[in-house]
């Protein structure tokens, strides 16, 4: 089981859309995937039409494996489940360590329901909190959408500083350019400069600014279901390929 997170300390950068579309791409490639909605403002549950579970409000939720299992909902797509948590959890680090420990009751409970998940995608809240720290530790890769503007550049620097100050492995970070408008000189110049500065840290694929991503709210479905062959659809597929490479997953599995 591999864990990746989608994170940004700045809002409105396309983070939730990225989580949703990456999870969808992973599932379509045959990986049993669980997307966890950890963003109180996030809409990943909304995109999958899953109603937030009222039973999950209690903070002690993560101590109770059975509740966790029961909260998982199958999406309308093969291989893709949703944990519509929709809130912050103080005990999330406990949850994550249990997810990684094959002897834990949580892990056994998951296996009892079905085969293990191949991939867990965490859609995180947009701030640096105790929760995001435990996510940074648990996840193998942290996908960070970056709009190529000066402001976003500063936010990325803050995140890198945070990693440095807390002794976290910066190589886990996988930033990519999001909402790119290639007609804007600022965008192209910023991208060029950042790629030069950070070398191979950035993923190859850049996500164009696209009305199709906005339309996810209308369709309430991943872009791949209604615009797979359009630029945004292709870019998410490319982004998933980049991540597969970085995770060392073989194509298709």
């Amino acid at each position, binding site marked *: 089981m591999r864990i990746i997170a989608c994170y940004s300390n700045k809002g409105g950068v396309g983070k939730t859309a990225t989580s949703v579309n990456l999870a969808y791409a992973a599932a379509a490639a045959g990986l*049993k995937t669980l997307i966890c909605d950890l963003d109180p403002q996030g809409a990943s549950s909304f995109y*999958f*039409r*899953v*109603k937030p579970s009222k039973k999950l409000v209690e903070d002690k939720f993560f101590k109770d494996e059975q509740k966790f299992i*029961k*909260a*998982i*909902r*199958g*999406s*309308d797509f*093969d*291989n*893709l*489940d949703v944990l519509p948590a929709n809130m912050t959890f103080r005990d999330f680090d406990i949850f994550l360590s249990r997810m990684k420990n094959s002897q834990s009751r949580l892990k056994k409970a998951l296996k009892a*329901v*079905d*085969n293990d998940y191949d991939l867990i995608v965490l859609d995180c809240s947009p701030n640096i909190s105790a929760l995001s720290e435990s996510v940074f530790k648990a996840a193998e890769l942290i996908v960070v959408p970056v709009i190529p503007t000066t402001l976003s550049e500063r936010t990325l620097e803050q995140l890198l500083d945070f990693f440095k100050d807390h002794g976290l492995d910066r190589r886990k970070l996988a930033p990519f350019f999001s909402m790119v408008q290639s007609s804007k000189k600022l965008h192209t110049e910023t991208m060029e400069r950042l790629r030069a500065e950070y070398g191979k840290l950035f993923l190859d694929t850049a996500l164009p600014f696209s009305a199709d991503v906005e339309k996810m709210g209308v369709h*309430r479905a991943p872009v791949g279901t209604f615009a797979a062959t359009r630029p945004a659809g292709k870019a998410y597929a490319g982004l998933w390929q980049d991540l597969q490479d970085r995770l060392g997953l073989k194509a298709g599995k």
Partner: protein
Amino acid sequence: MTSDNSDIMILAGAVTAEAMGDRLGKLVLDTPEAGETAGFVLLDTFDQAVRKAGSVLIETGGQLQLMQPGGVVRTQAAKRSGNFVADFADGPVKDALSGLEPLRSLLVVGRGELRQSAAVAKDDEDKTHARVRFSTLVPDGAGKKVTLVSLQPLRGYEKSFEALGSRVQDVSKGPEMEVRDLYARLFPDTLDYDPKPDVGMTGGETAFQAATDIMRAYLAVARRNEDGTIADHDTEFLHDYRVALRKIRSVISLFRGVFSDAETARLKTVFSDLMAPTGRLRDLDVYLLEKDTYFDLLPETLHDGLTAMFAQFAKERNAVQKQVARRLRSATYARQMAALQAEFDGATGLEPGPAADRLAHDYACELIWKRYRKVCKIARAIDDTTPDEDVHELRIHCKKLRYLMEFFAPLFPAADIKALIKPLKVLQDNLGLFNDYSVQQASLQDFLDSRSGVRKQDVTIAKSIGALIAILHRRQLEERARVVSSFAHFDSEDVQLAFRAMFKESEV
């Protein structure tokens, strides 16, 4: 979450999604793809290995659909380069069928029309809770309709799934069916196939009856393989055909005294003559099946010669196959086989010998015990200096012992027989490989001798074959070196006591 969790039901008759209604409690029932009709082909191997695994494999609309026990439904594109599982494109159906005998091709069990309809239970957010798909198979011909129902739950919506399931129960007429009854309902003419048929023995029959029962059963097996051999679906048809005829021939030669000497001689000739015209085809099949192994044995620099040799084999095989097919289709052959069947059926025409009326059980014990003693006598004299001829003789006696034990197996406790056959098989595998390597060297040498031309291709082939023979010779020596220890394993005290108890001391 995935189709892996779905449940499958088989219903007699036609059921469609419309019958489900448009509401399920608070949920709406959508019927998105109702009323599509397409042709379908039901696929299985000749021995119905797919059905025996509890599965159903159909091809429709360019897709292969494999429904497995426990409700698993796997789908992939039907496009393929041939009808063996290895010819399929990589995908979930190919993965699931990887346990099938690789030498068996998939054949058409039957065809017909497929009507598929589906219902999706959704909530007020338009979120799917559960799905059901009805696939009604309408067979061409005299069979009856069947509806395959696959119910797909989504995690976290168990109640909706149960509600959908009971709605299906409500609208379905008649009881559920089992996969094993599916072919019989759809295509009643379909016959099952078992290369090792049960020959019912009670122990009360005479040796003559036992012999004719076995011969009759295996003649039927041989005949079942004629069409597939003619059509050349896969190499297993001819193989099973020959094994069945060889078993009949073994009964004739091993069951001494059951038939008169003249009858025994006549039948031996008849069955040898039946088998002989197919021998070359089987040899070529074996070479071609071993193709990859041969390529693996030699370095790439010597592959050109192999490529040329196998091209020759393939060409010859095509020609020989046509001859065999022509022969099996001929009126003369049909008359001969029909006459033999009639002879075995009535068994009146067969002339009995002095042992014909002995009780089968006593007769079996005597034959097996004698053969076992013979095997032991030869084997115990073998050491590393014994000539190869003696090892070949041991192999032949082991084979005869094995046949006798298998023919008469129904007269003895199954577990006891199995326990004795197992160590015998280990010894036989060893001796079999020893023999195969020896035969392969000889036939490669024959092939070489037959084309001792001076053309460049012949020189290339000669180089490769020379190298191959050297490797096969080394392997033969390795197998030879194992014979003494293989026999020691078979000759354990436990096995000795078991043979004596079962075949010597039970003889009264």
